[in-house]
């Protein structure tokens, strides 16, 4: 009983890293642009598909290569999304941008459907090995690998944000875009770079999801988009630590509920949680400090 609870919690938290990554992508773009990119999860899954297709077309089989190509392809998709949905739509029309990213979501999703006839494709596991036993607790090696890759990606991102020139510029733009321009930071270039970086992150997340589920399907896109939004909202819009914690939380919460109550009720409670959060704590867990002028 207790051990079942722990087991589902651990599994959920490990896989929750993928939610964290998707949430970081949403939140980072929101931080910089103050807009939501709803095509993000579809671009991530699309990137994961591209990785598989590109490596497969070249006759390769290496899972590592698939991962790298997925990340690269998703970075390119991120740039395309920036150009179509953000770069040229005036800032005074947030509705237009939001809807445009929805169009992008449909577009990417449908290209995948047409390219694969909606048939789920097998995804290579990144690591196969014996599972680790901690007492009665089993830690699945592929989940552990997903967790490790997720943590590594977050670490690299943190270093990039806090130790690089691009990171300085990104933070400057997200906190005070006018002053950032006055410092000589080119807004469009930083925005585009943010989309590429979050795209790469999403590609890694997409490939991780493929690897942990064992396959990819276009039907993953909508639930993943919703999960990403949930993580972003619960973590607090614009907060990266918030997204990380919320991702792990939602992953664990969801898996435990699934174990006890089944998939439909699980989703029901997750949605209820989201609704309650929005109504009673719209700032999320890590509510941003009051805005300064």
């Amino acid at each position, binding site marked *: 009983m207790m051990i079942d609870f722990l087991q589902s919690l651990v599994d959920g938290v490990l896989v929750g890293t993928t939610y964290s990554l998707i949430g970081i992508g949403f939140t980072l773009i929101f931080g910089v642009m103050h807009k939501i990119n709803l095509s993000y999860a579809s671009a991530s899954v699309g990137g994961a598909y591209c990785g598989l297709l590109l490596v497969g077309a070249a006759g390769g089989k290496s899972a590592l290569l698939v991962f790298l190509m997925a990340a690269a392809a998703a970075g390119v998709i991120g740039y395309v999304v920036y150009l179509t949905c953000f770069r040229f739509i005036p800032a005074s029309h947030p509705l237009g941008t939001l809807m445009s990213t929805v169009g992008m979501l449909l577009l990417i999703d449908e290209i995948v459907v047409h390219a694969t006839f909606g048939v789920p494709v097998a995804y290579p596991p990144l690591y196969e090995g014996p599972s680790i036993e901690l007492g009665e607790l089993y830690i699945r090696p592929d989940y552990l690998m997903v967790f490790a890759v997720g943590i590594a990606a977050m670490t690299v991102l943190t270093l990039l944000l806090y130790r690089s020139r691009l990171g300085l*510029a990104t*933070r400057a733009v997200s*906190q005070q875009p*006018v*002053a950032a*321009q*006055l410092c*000589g*930071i080119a807004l469009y270039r930083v925005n585009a770079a943010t989309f590429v970086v979050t795209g790469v992150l999403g590609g890694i997340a997409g490939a991780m999801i493929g690897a942990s589920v064992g396959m990819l399907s276009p039907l993953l896109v909508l639930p993943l988009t919703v999960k990403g939004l949930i993580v972003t909202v619960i973590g607090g819009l614009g907060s990266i630590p918030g997204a990380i914690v919320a991702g792990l939380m939602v992953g664990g919460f969801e898996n435990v509920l699934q174990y006890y109550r089944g998939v439909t009720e699980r989703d029901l409670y997750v949605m209820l949680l989201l609704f309650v959060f929005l109504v009673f704590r719209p700032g999320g867990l890590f509510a941003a400090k009051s805005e300064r002028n």
Partner: protein
Amino acid sequence: MLRVGDVVTAYGQLEALKGVSVAAESGKITCLLGPNGAGKTTLMMTVTGLLKPKRGSIAFEGQELVGLSPSEIVARGVALVPENRLVFPDMSVRENLEAGAYLRRKPAEIAADLDRMFERFPRLKERAGQSAGTLSGGEQQMLAVARALMSRPRLLLMDEPSLGLAPLIVEEIFRIVAELNRDGTSIFLVEQNAHMALKVAHHFYLIEQGRVTFSGSPGQLAEDEVIQRAYLGSKRG
């Protein structure tokens, strides 16, 4: 050094600048005085490329700035201390200054300038690791000035540096302005506080409702009248 010729800037149909011509001389402090809504901030934003003028020219050291992006204009040697300071609230004081030096590539020079800023603004040194959002208004103003200086501008634009600050702090800010100018930085200042501005300025303009209505040196116009027009605008508009 800076020549603004007949600039018109509009927000949609509304013209905030209706053909403004001003100039800032090298090595001098030039001051633009005027009431709220006269177009002072609009002019600053137009010069720095944040707004695109409908027509007119802006020449800096003989080169046209109109059409350049803000970052290209910073690279030419024009830096603005914006209205309300606009520091990066969740970045440390040191990072704010590093952001100011964003376009410069030599770490050693940047480090030297950082030391120089801390020397000039000891308060900032004390708070180097603190988030800028936690600073007081006066400290934020100093940080904004220091951040602008980190790009090594030849012309420093300042938009209402005294706004919302206590009188003692305002005096300190203007002392720093005079000091910077003595050390060789040309300054173009926009203010509503005519009393303080006239003390440091070599040349001043009055701007009212998007038009320059007076140009001369301090003393050419009675201070009372300048103050009156800088706060309220003249009756004839």
